[in-house]
Every structure is written in structure tokens, then in C-alpha cells.
């Protein structure tokens, strides 16, 4: 055993050396774009190319679940559904009907930070796409039966995704436990009670406050002509009046103080699950890349530290993941492990802590950093391959960092990642008093089922 391990390590080192030598000066193509702000404050980013007869539009509104007030959790996402229920010149459902029946795809998605709408269509349908987006930004129709209908759909979305699934309520419990400020404490999907309470007046007020052109960014990528697209953008969007800026979100989070713990019983789960979550700085922090790299070094793939030690060698868990969801405010560095059948959760938890302490004590190998860097680069190349990903990346960089040009400079920025920074953020943030631990245990069902 000892001999074979040494042999494996020696061979791994040889492989790594050969590869490191071959990682070349390869760079992705640069994305050219224009960045214009219309008179009403709408920011317009256009990235023209002609690789395929296709374009994508990403419309991002600077509003997410963090903007919701107490008693209206889930509202930003419920509102997103209302954006498909019609506007002055577009009937209920006509938005998605128009896009799909002309060969396109589209969707909307909401997170804590923002609400994003997008469509990809054949190149000859640019007017249709821009008209659809402008009409609903300008003149959303807000009626009760549409709201009731989408309230139902969203409540089913919650049931399907959370309430009827193993571990469905765990993530919600984690945010509630780890955060104190209401902005980030609740889930995006929201509570059934709050969804039921949402009114037509709420929809109208939310629309006026947050769906203003000065609170939005539109990125268009693909087979378009920049000058004529900008001209169309002015025609369709510039008449929409700006609104007073929305109230700033209070994202201040009181210090955590000490470890928090919770045990949940889940009648739908079959195996225990352990969630360990540490508060870490936002994407705007200079440590953003180091935090991402930390998640890769710990649990990014099968050669990562925790997978190798805990899943493969000790066999205490059958799955382990680490990630830090994007946020401009407080956020969590999350570690999720599903315990192997019959293995004690306490032992699993201690093994994870031992892995973290080992990382802090060092050293971190150069190849561990290389893996994280290469994964990020690979993702970047993959993303710029589709007009939709290009549009979304541009709009997201503009929203979060104010700079869509990061799409071209992040490649170089990734070169600066280093082991010392990764170790420093681990030491600083992955501490006992900064963590919240949730254990989800299966609760045996009352009956065996059947009629």
C-alpha cells in the first residue's frame, strides 16, 4: 500500500511536469464591443460578430431577492414571471410564443442580485426581440388574473424544486441560519405565505421602482450591425422615461460571533447530508479569485483534496462539493457532503475540518493552483463560444464591476492567482466562529406507501 502510493505520487509528478510544460501561450479571441448609455440611463453594450446568423439579447435589471422587503420574500422572482404576461402591444404569453415560434429560445432567471431576461434568435429577428423587451420595460400590463396564475406556477416551482425534493429545504435553512440582515437571509423562491400575500399593487410599485431604464443594462451579442442596432435601441428604448434611483440595499451584516448549528429532519432524504458554510467577502473583494481557487483546491473535481481524502480514501462521504455563490453583498463559502451509508456525520465533519487546517498549514502545490486557473480559463473559452454566454458575461461584468471589458482581461487576471493568497483567505475566513453547520438527517416515513 505504502509503496503503491509512493509510485502513484511519483507518476503524478511526472505527468504534471510534462503538462505544465505544454500549457502554452494559447489565448482566446478578444471580444470587441461598444458601451453606450442612452439619455434615459439605459446602458447598452453591443458585441458584433458574424460567426453564425444568430444574435442574443441579455437584459439585466438591477433587482433581486436582496431588494425584497419583509413579508414579500420571493417577490422579485414572482415579478419575473409577470414579465411574460403581457404589455401594451404584446399579449399574455405572446413574448415567448413569438420567440419560440420564430426559431429562438428565451427565458428569465432571478437570483439574489439581479433579474435576467434573455433571448437568442435567428439574425433576421432583431426588431422583434428589441420590440418585445422594450414594450414590457415601458408598459407592463398588471392584472389580477395574470398574477394569480403565475403565483400558482411559482408555488408549483417551489414545490417541484424544494418541497417535494430530498434536501429541498436545506439551502433555505442555511441562509436563514448564517445571515442576520434580511436582504440575504431569505431564499429567492420565497415563502408560500409571502407569495400568497403579493398583490397587484405590489407588482405595480415594484415595476415603477426597479424596472426603469436607468436600473437596467442590455447586452447584445452576435450577428448584428452595431450602428443600426444602436439606432434601433434608441428608437425602441429611449422614449421610456427614467425613474428616481431605487433605494440602496442595506447589505451590512452584523459580525457572526460564534459557530451556529442546526439539525433538520427530512422525510424525503435517504442519506444524511452535512452543510458547512463560512461567511466570505463578496465578488467585489480583491480576494474574489482566491476564494474561487480555494473552492477548487478543496473540492473542485476528483483530484481535489477533500474528494481524494474523504470520498476515495476514507470513504466517509459519497459526494463532496465546495462553492461560493456570486454576490455583491455578504455571501457564503459552502461545503456540501453526502455521508456514505452508515458512516458517522461527526467523523465526516472532523475530516473536512482536518482538510481545511491542512490547507492552511500548507504547502499548496503549484499544480493545485494551475488546475483552478485552467478550469477558469477553460470555462471562459467555452462561454465566449455562444452569443448568449457572451451577452450574459458582458451584462454581468457591467452590473457587478461596472466594466464589461473584464471579459477580455480576466484571462490575464487569472495568471496572478497564487498559493499564498489562497492560504491567507482560508486562514482568515474558514474559522470555527465564522461557520454555520446544518446537518440534514433522513426521517423515516410513516408508511411504506401504496394506496
Amino acid at each position, binding site marked *: 500500500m505504502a509503496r503503491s502510493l509512493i509510485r502513484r505520487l511519483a507518476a503524478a509528478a511526472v505527468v504534471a511536469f510534462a503538462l505544465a510544460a505544454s500549457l502554452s501561450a494559447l489565448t482566446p479571441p478578444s471580444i470587441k464591443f461598444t458601451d453606450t448609455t442612452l439619455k434615459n440611463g439605459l446602458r447598452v453594450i453591443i458585441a458584433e460578430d458574424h460567426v453564425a446568423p444568430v444574435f442574443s439579447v441579455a437584459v439585466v435589471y438591477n433587482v433581486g431577492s436582496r431588494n425584497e422587503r419583509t413579508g414579500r420574500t420571493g417577490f422579485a422572482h414572482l415579478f419575473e414571471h409577470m414579465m411574460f404576461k403581457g404589455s401594451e402591444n404584446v399579449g*399574455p404569453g405572446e413574448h415567448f410564443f413569438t420567440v419560440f415560434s420564430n426559431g429562438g429560445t428565451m427565458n428569465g432567471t432571478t437570483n439574489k442580485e439581479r433579474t435576467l431576461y434573455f433571448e437568442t434568435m435567428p439574425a433576421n429577428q432583431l*426588431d422583434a426581440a428589441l420590440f418585445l423587451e422594450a414594450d414590457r420595460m415601458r408598459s407592463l400590463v398588471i392584472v389580477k388574473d395574470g398574477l394569480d396564475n403565475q403565483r400558482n406556477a411559482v408555488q408549483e416551482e417551489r414545490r417541484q424544486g424544494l418541497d417535494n425534493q430530498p434536501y429541498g429545504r436545506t439551502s433555505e435553512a442555511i441562509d436563514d441560519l448564517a445571515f442576520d440582515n434580511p436582504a440575504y437571509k431569505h431564499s429567492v423562491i420565497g415563502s408560500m405565505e409571502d407569495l400568497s400575500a403579493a398583490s397587484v399593487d405590489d407588482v405595480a410599485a415594484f415595476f415603477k421602482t426597479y424596472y426603469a431604464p436607468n436600473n437596467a443594462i442590455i447586452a447584445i451579442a452576435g450577428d448584428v450591425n452595431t450602428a443600426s442596432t444602436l439606432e434601433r435601441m434608441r428608437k425602441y428604448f429611449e422614449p421610456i422615461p427614467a425613474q428616481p434611483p431605487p433605494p440602496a440595499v442595506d447589505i451590512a451584516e452584523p459580525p457572526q460571533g460564534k459557530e451556529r448549528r442546526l439539525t433538520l429532519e427530512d422525510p424525503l432524504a435517504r442519506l444524511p447530508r452535512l452543510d458547512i458554510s463560512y461567511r466570505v467577502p463578496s465578488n467585489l473583494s480583491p480576494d474574489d479569485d482566491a476564494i474561487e481557487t480555494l473552492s477548487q483546491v478543496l473540492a473542485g473535481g476528483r483530484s481535489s483534496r477533500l474528494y481524494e481524502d474523504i470520498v476515495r480514501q476514507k470513504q466517509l462521504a459519497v459526494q463532496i462539493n465546495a462553492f461560493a455563490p456570486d454576490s455583491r453583498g455578504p455571501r457564503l463559502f459552502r461545503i456540501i457532503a453526502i455521508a456514505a451509508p452508515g458512516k458517522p456525520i461527526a467523523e465526516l465533519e472532523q475530516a473536512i475540518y482536518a482538510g481545511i487546517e491542512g490547507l492552511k498549514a500548507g504547502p499548496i502545490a503549484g499544480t493545485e493552483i494551475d488546475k483552478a486557473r485552467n478550469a477558469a480559463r477553460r470555462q471562459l473559452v467555452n462561454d465566449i463560444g455562444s452569443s448568449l454566454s457572451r451577452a450574459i458575461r458582458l451584462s454581468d461584468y457591467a452590473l457587478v464591476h461596472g466594466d464589461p471589458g473584464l471579459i477580455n482581461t480576466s484571462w490575464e487576471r487569472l495568471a496572478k492567482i497564487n498559493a499564498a493568497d489562497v492560504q491567507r483567505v482560508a486562514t482568515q475566513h474558514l474559522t470555527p466562529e465564522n461557520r454555520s453547520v446544518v446537518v440534514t438527517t433522513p426521517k423515516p416515513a410513516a408508511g411504506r406507501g401504496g394506496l
Partner: protein
Amino acid sequence: MRIAHRSIGIIVTTVAMAAALSAQAPPQQTPSPTQGVVKKGKVPVSNQVLKIKLPRPAEADLANGLHLMVLEDHRLPQVSFQLFIPGAGGYFDPPDQPGLAAFAAALMREGTATRTSEQISEQLELMAASLNFGAGAASPEATITGSSLSDQTAALIDLASDVLLHPSFRQEEFARYQQRTRAGLMQQRGNPGFLAAELFGRAVYGEHPAARISPTAAALDRTTRQHLVDFHQAHYLPDHAVMAIAGDISLAQARTLVEAKLAGWKKSSATVPPVTEPVPVDGPKIYFIGRPNSVQTNLIVGAQAIERTNAEYDVLQVMNKVIGGGPTGRLFIHLREEKGYTYGASSSLNAPQHRGEWSASTSVRTDVTDPALTDLLAEVGQLRDQPVPDQELADAKRSMIASFALSLESPAQLLSLYVTQWRYKLAADYWDRYPDRVSAVTREQILASARKYLAANRLQIVAVGDPAKVGDTLKKLGTVETYDTEGKRIGSR
């Protein structure tokens, strides 16, 4: 709106069932419907459908029988490949060992004569490359897929070849895999969608291999290292395999690379392993899995349909688009946008080498199970009873044809069209003529196909939900076969 994408869709039943349901549906459970789609017709849409010229892959037949297809595209520095190996999929599992092909495929990745499992992981992750070996539970083929930045392509193909040709199937790795997989098999039984799909497979295909969607724990326990070694030796043959590579590489480069790395993969002169047709199901049935604590009922309705090469394939695709092919489908508009029963409802056509199936699926809150199933069955009934209106048919066809432009964004997606053409021996101009064939589909053809394949006496209904609340709803439809969440039959009532 985050529309759910699912492989298994919804719907259907007999005239008798539909009649019974509509008579029984308690109106007080039904929210007042709103309008699903209203067309004001003011959106400045172009009525032209872009004419698309599809690029063709370059192709070559190698000495060992392997067919090579390359779609060269240099817009990004990356390369992806797919290798399909007929005869190595779960379809060919021994009947008492469902999962053997999947176990073999998974274990190949766990070590070769010269590389340990850890080394393979380390190398792939350092390259930021992906490499996956899989064998679908019902598929006749094993599939190896990979992708990397183009300066790593040679190393990736080298690794893939080593894993393909020289797997070591170490006992220690198999024991680890068994432990992880046992847990996975246990976990998936917590997912109501899995439970529904598993029973639906049995309902539609009976004992035919197409019924399989997952290995069983019993097969996992029964399998030995020697089974894996033997399966690999007997089934991983190059004679009828196809290697499809897309991206920053030429045919000449790809050929040189593949011939060099796969030199040891010798022709066997074996014939293509045959598949058989499933036995037609004897009448419609209703199946129920009681899942305590469910807050929704998962529904799947469907029937055996056609094989990929059937002349009615295009007709059934258009029919499927009309009833359940995405958010413009009748199911989505009716069950969600009008009634608010569900987050999503859709249908799909699975047409493999042998007769496949059409199915519709949704999940609805428990207390509207009855009206939702009634409406779903009524939508299927309408497809059989009434021709699709001209405008709706034109919209569905335009959607299918115009969306071809989007595939030009992805070389890998484009190439997969040609792989399908090769695998099913379709005509060389099959995809060039696709728009014409779809355009030619008539409402009469759809009506005839719906009557033939979605006839009431063919349809199987599967429901998964709260046993305390859903049972009576289904009993109105006829005799219900009941199961528990372990897949064991409890009885019929």
C-alpha cells in the same frame, strides 16, 4: 420563468377514461382559468425563415473499421469529441445483471495498465479537460465524450485511448465504485421523477431492455471484476464505431492522431449486434407509486411509438411540438399558463433503433391531481379527434425549421446531426431536406398518427404522489396497480 427541461414528458388515455374523468372532475378544485396566449400581432416579426447552409463534416473510414467524422472550426481554441461504440451499451446487459455495461464503462476510467485512477483525475483536471465514459441503461451504444483546449487535444486523445484499450479494472477501485454507486442508487429513490420514469419504462416496455433506466443494487452486488473484464473484451469493438470530432482540428490532423493512438484497437469482424422490437403492451394500465410526504403528484402518460427510421418520424415530431414541445405546446399553455396547476408540462418522442415511446409529463400540486390529469388526457384526446388548426401547425413547423440557425453557433451540436445521420443510415442529404420534410407534414397526417400511436387502448398512466390523497382519484380511471417507493408491487385495486 425558468422552464424545466425534461426527457420525459406527459399525457393521455382512452376515450372511456377521458369521459370518466371529465364527469368526475370537481369544479371547485379548479382555479378560474386565465388566457394562456393572446396574440395582438403587433410585434415586428420578419416572416422570412433564414436559409441555412449547413457545413459538412469531412469523413474517413479507418482500417480497423472505425468511422471518423471531423467538423473543422477554428473560431475557438478548443476541440470536443464523441466516440460511439455499438454493442457496448446497457441494452446488451444480461437480463439478470442490468447495469453491467454502465459498471464497465465507469470502471474503465478508474485505472489502466500504466495509470492509476488518481493520475487520470489529476491529468484531466490539470488540462481542464473533460473525459466521460458512459453506457446508457437502455442504449445499444457506449459513449465516450471529451473536450479540451486545442493545445491539449493530443494528450486528451492519448489518455482516452489508454482508458479505452487498457483498463485495469482493479478490484480495489471496483469496491470503491460499488460503495459510491450503492449510495447513489439509494438516493435516486428519493426523487419522485426517477420513481415515475422507472415505473413508466416497465409499463411501456415490459421486460424489453428499453425499460431500463438505471442499474439495480442486486446487479451491482452480483458483478465481479471478471464480469467487467469479459464485457470490455467482448463489447468494445471498433468495427462499427464512430468517432466524431469538432473544433480547432483538421481531418488530416485528427486522422493522424486517432490512427496513432488507437493503433492497438483491432478489427474484430463482428457484425452489428442486433436489437429486437419490444412486445406491444396489452392494453392501457394505471400505475401508482405511493410516496408519503409528497406535496405534488408526478404524472407520466405515454405509449410505444416508432423507431428512428420510421417514415412517420417527422409527422410525430411535429405532432409532439404541437402538444408538448416546449412553452408553446398545448400542455404548457393549458396546464400552466391557463390553469396554474404546474410549473411545467411537456412531451417528448424517443425514437431509437427499435420502437421507442412518446410520453408527456408534469408534476402538479396534490389537490389538483384529478383535474390536471383530466385536462392532460383531454389534450391527447383532442389530438386524436380534431385536426391541428392551420395557423398552429404553421407556427409549430416554422419554430422547428427556423431554430436550425441556432445550431450553427455550436460545431459540436452541428456534428451531432451528422452522427445521427450516420448511426441510423439516413440519406446523405437528410438534414438539407429537413425543412422541406417538416414543411410537408399535413394536419391529416398528424391526425392519423395520433389515432394510431396515441390511441386510448395503448396509453399507460403512471402517477407518484401522496398515498393518502391521490389514490381515489386514480381509481376512477380503472384498476390501479400500486407500488411502493422501492419499486415493489403492492397490489391492484
